């Protein structure tokens, strides 16, 4: 496992992230234009969705697909409750901030997922091709749990069909699922046509994206004073708890080693795109610095640098690969 951790640390991907973080902490003016970062994230979502779909088309649908989707949705619903309780114990943050944070940890970070697939492909470990669909399914339920936690208190959250549409049809989900379906429809032939765009340069593009994530996380860290010590501890402990829950679910469902590692990663990761947007609309009184800093500047780096090799090692041990 130490080997794995070191190999991970020395991958161009992780080092690019570290470079970005270091640059931000040193207050360099290095920055990736917003439009470019958004363009890259479109590329990554399209590529990962398409590859998943094309692979599903060639391998056929697995019986575990439905089970995995179900497991993912349940995890997304339940993890916020766990996160909320933990936060109430560890940190002095307000009830409403705790609920908002909890929502982020039930949902997922697609970039962490992408990095995990890249760790898997480096390690030569296969995974279920429909895991991208599971990722998409896990985005939204956590938001519901968070809003329920908030409405249980005296505070009220604004929630209506409009906001629901926004959440369920947010750009990332639509692109991920859409390209998954395109990949399924066009299959290996379709993949062959665009392989030299979405497969070969993938890791390199991911480096630039993680450089930017490092810059953002580093800038976030400079505002880390919004977090009390307990919150920081939460940011490291919660992904491990989430991963454990994901592991359990994966073993129950009977996922492969790669699938297990990916479900652990999804459960361990925290959202910083879909959930913050929903929270700003529904719960404006919750402080965005708290949830963004925690998920972007604490948990994301933790998962990327330490979490992923741990999850892979554990998955390999327990699925007997």
């Amino acid at each position, binding site marked *: 496992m130490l080997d794995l951790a070191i190999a991970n640390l020395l991958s161009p991907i992780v080092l690019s992230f570290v470079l970005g973080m270091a640059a931000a902490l040193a207050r360099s003016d290095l*920055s990736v234009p*917003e439009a470019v*970062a958004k363009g890259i*994230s479109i590329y990554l979502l399209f590529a990962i969705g398409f590859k998943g779909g094309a692979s599903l088309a060639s391998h056929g649908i697995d019986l575990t697909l439905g089970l995995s989707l179900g497991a993912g949705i349940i995890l997304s619903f339940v993890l916020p409750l766990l996160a909320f309780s933990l936060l109430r114990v560890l940190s002095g943050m307000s009830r409403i901030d705790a609920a908002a944070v909890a929502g982020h940890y039930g949902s997922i970070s697609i970039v962490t997922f992408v990095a995990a697939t890249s760790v898997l492909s480096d390690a030569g470990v296969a995974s279920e091709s429909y895991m991208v669909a599971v990722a998409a399914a896990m985005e939204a339920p956590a938001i519901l749990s968070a809003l329920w936690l908030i409405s249980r208190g005296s505070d009220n959250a*604004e929630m209506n069909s409009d906001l629901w549409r926004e959440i369920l049809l*947010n*750009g990332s989900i639509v692109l991920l699922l859409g390209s998954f379906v395109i990949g399924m429809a066009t299959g290996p032939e379709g993949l062959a046509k665009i392989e030299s765009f979405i497969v070969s340069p993938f890791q390199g593009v991911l480096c630039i994206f993680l450089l*930017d*994530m490092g*810059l*953002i996380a580093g*800038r*976030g860290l400079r*505002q880390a004073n919004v977090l009390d010590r307990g919150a920081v501890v939460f940011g490291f402990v919660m992904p491990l708890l989430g991963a454990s829950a994901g592991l359990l679910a994966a073993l129950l469902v009977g996922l492969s080693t790669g699938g297990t590692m990916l479900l652990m990663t999804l459960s361990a990761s925290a959202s*910083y*795109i879909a*959930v*913050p*947007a*929903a*929270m*700003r*609309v529904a719960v*404006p*009184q919750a*402080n*965005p*610095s708290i949830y*963004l800093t925690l998920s*972007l500047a604490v948990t994301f780096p933790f998962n990327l640098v330490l979490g992923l090799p741990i999850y892979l090692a554990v998955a390999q041990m327990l699925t007997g690969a």
Partner: protein
Amino acid sequence: MQKHEAKRVEIMIETVMLRRLTEALQSADVTGWSVLPVLGGSGRSGTWSREGQISRGTGMVQVVCLIRPEKLEPLLEAVYLVVERHIGVISVSDVKVLRAERF
């Protein structure tokens, strides 16, 4: 050149709230506005900058709205309902406009 009294309302609002704001403007019978990008800023809820964003959950825009003076109150009331619980600022100034038939 013939000029007419008007009000210029400038609203800084979170991007996620923009659609809700323009719907409120329409409901107050305001049909003219322009949206400008904001790169960063500072306020009671701290300092932010577009560069430090990956989330769609933050970021702001400036909405500029030129209206006839008599439409100011309904506009402000409609807008206020949207921004009430949210961060952002609203300012109003006196301006003169050409082509008054447009407002």
